């Protein structure tokens, strides 16, 4: 990846991380851990990959994105705000009564949200429906979906996975955010979905494995997905829950907790420091 572009994406991803902390801190609830683990890829998708129009969020020809792991809405909201779908100030109203930003994505209320999600395992089915619709109508838009690694314990995910391969949905790219943690602990201790890559391959998908926090690898994966025909692609990304905030890093306690005032300031200071460092490079 071009150095300037990479720097731009790193800056955007750090700003998105700050937006996540801002939102969850102000809401006094929410899911920072998994939001921080998937936000680099969301940033890449929205600033490098997806064809959308912020002035016309419902434009029919747009690419679609479905956050199947809907509890990581703070990451999506943060990236959508940076992209320009709504003012960044809105992030502070997350989860408040009457706010545009609901606890989980609401396609009726938030510009740029393509599907209401939150109940795990359901977004990927909707993404299949969107991709299937493009095939039925000979349209060339693409559909992206982000799943959690704990989420794929839901049986519906494998119903959808089977269908996507059966109907040769090569316009669908799913990402599995493999941070290895779910509410009750490590995924391989709660209910192991491993080996994840083998399972998707067995279901007939093209599988790519990457480091979720490396933009070179993210770019290579999405470029490779474009060359795949006749089958859907899954990018299984090794990520870290809470990535970017020292005390949240790989720590299951931060699946669904909001930082205290002191913790909020520590997180923002760390992210600010990282931002200044990247900007100075």
């Amino acid at each position: 990846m071009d150095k300037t572009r990479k720097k731009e994406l790193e800056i955007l991803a750090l700003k998105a991380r700050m937006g996540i902390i801002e939102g969850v801190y102000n809401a006094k609830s929410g899911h920072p851990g998994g939001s921080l683990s998937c936000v680099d890829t969301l940033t890449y998708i929205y600033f490098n990959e997806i064809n959308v129009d912020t002035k016309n969020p419902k434009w029919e020809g747009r690419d679609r994105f479905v956050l199947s792991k809907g509890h990581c809405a703070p990451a999506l909201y943060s990236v959508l705000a940076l992209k320009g779908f709504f003012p960044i100030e809105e992030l502070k109203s997350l989860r408040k009564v009457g706010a545009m930003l609901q606890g989980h994505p609401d396609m009726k209320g938030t510009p740029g949200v393509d599907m209401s999600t939150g109940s795990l395992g359901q977004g990927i089915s909707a993404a299949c429906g969107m991709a299937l619709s493009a095939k039925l109508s000979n349209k060339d838009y693409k559909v992206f979906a982000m799943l959690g690694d704990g989420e794929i314990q839901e049986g519906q995910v494998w119903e959808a996975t089977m269908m996507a391969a059966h109907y040769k949905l090569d316009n669908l790219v799913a990402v599995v955010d493999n941070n290895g943690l779910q509410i009750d602990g490590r995924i391989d201790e709660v209910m192991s979905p491993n080996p994840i890559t083998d399972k998707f391959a067995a279901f007939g998908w093209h599988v790519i494995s990457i480091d979720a926090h490396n933009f070179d690898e993210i770019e290579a994966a999405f470029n490779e997905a474009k060359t795949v025909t006749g089958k859907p692609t899954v990018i299984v990304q090794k990520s870290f829950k809470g990535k970017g905030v020292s005390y949240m890093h790989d720590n299951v306690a931060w699946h669904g907790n909001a930082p205290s005032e002191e913790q909020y300031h520590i997180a923002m200071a760390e992210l600010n420091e990282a931002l200044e460092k990247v900007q100075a490079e």
Partner: protein
Amino acid sequence: MSDKKIATRDSYGAALVELAQEDENIVVLDADLAAATKTGMFKKAFPERFIDCGIAEANMLGVAAGLATTGKKVFASSFAMFAAGRAFEIIRNSIGYPHLKVNICATHAGISVGEDGATHQCNEDIALMRTIPGMTIINPSDDVETKACMKALLSYDGPAYVRLGRLAVPVINDHEDYNFEIGKGIELVSGNDITIVATGLMVAEALKAAETLKQDGINARVINIHTIKPLDKEIILKAAKETGVIVTAEEHNIIGGLGSAVSEVVCENSPIPVLKVGVNDVFGMSGPAVELLVKYGLTADNIVATCKKALTMK
């Protein structure tokens, strides 16, 4: 009432084929039951717009939601038990919450599924669907009504659950002044002694019951409620005021279905006795459909008996 009998699932399959000739946005989904739900008729006529989702109802309804976000007019079918029952939460969250235009057309509803027995006889679907905000529920009484509701749904915006049956039922709406409107009940027989509010295949039984009652000098009003939600409050309250007592009739558990819906409206606005004919909070069993309808009291005779009891409470 003519002698002709047609199962509403057959009317559904035929209507799909007819409507799809005019509207290329129609897409039909099924979960490996195309022969039974009669979407097979559509599959044969428009294979490129028919999506078999396999035995995976939860995914099918999620896929239906995704298709609807792109402007497709989606009809998704399975047996009522596996659509409303198994996929309830997907219907609630992926279709109901975003208020997507998905028509869930569930066949094999009620006890009249017959020999397959309790696991397949869904007497809970109306109750389940009623609790989803914004969900429209239509329970057609015959061939004419099924086709009329399908046509109306094409230009209706929002999620709808259509309840269809396996058993051939009499055609009762084949007359010129029949007019279908979502959310509007139809007064089929006038009368001021008592009102029978019926839905689905029980409408034909209600008509028979009214004739029997008439022989005993009781003038029963018969109302066909094809749309259970939104319920036509006006026609119900008018009947409550004018006849003073109501008997409901449905092929569904007496808890949570038409009887409950009518009771709720009446209790809050014009309290009078409301007695319910329906499956009396029990699981069904295997047997020929017609025999099961008799066993569980879903007959004109039981409506008559219930009306006579209700009249003593007036």
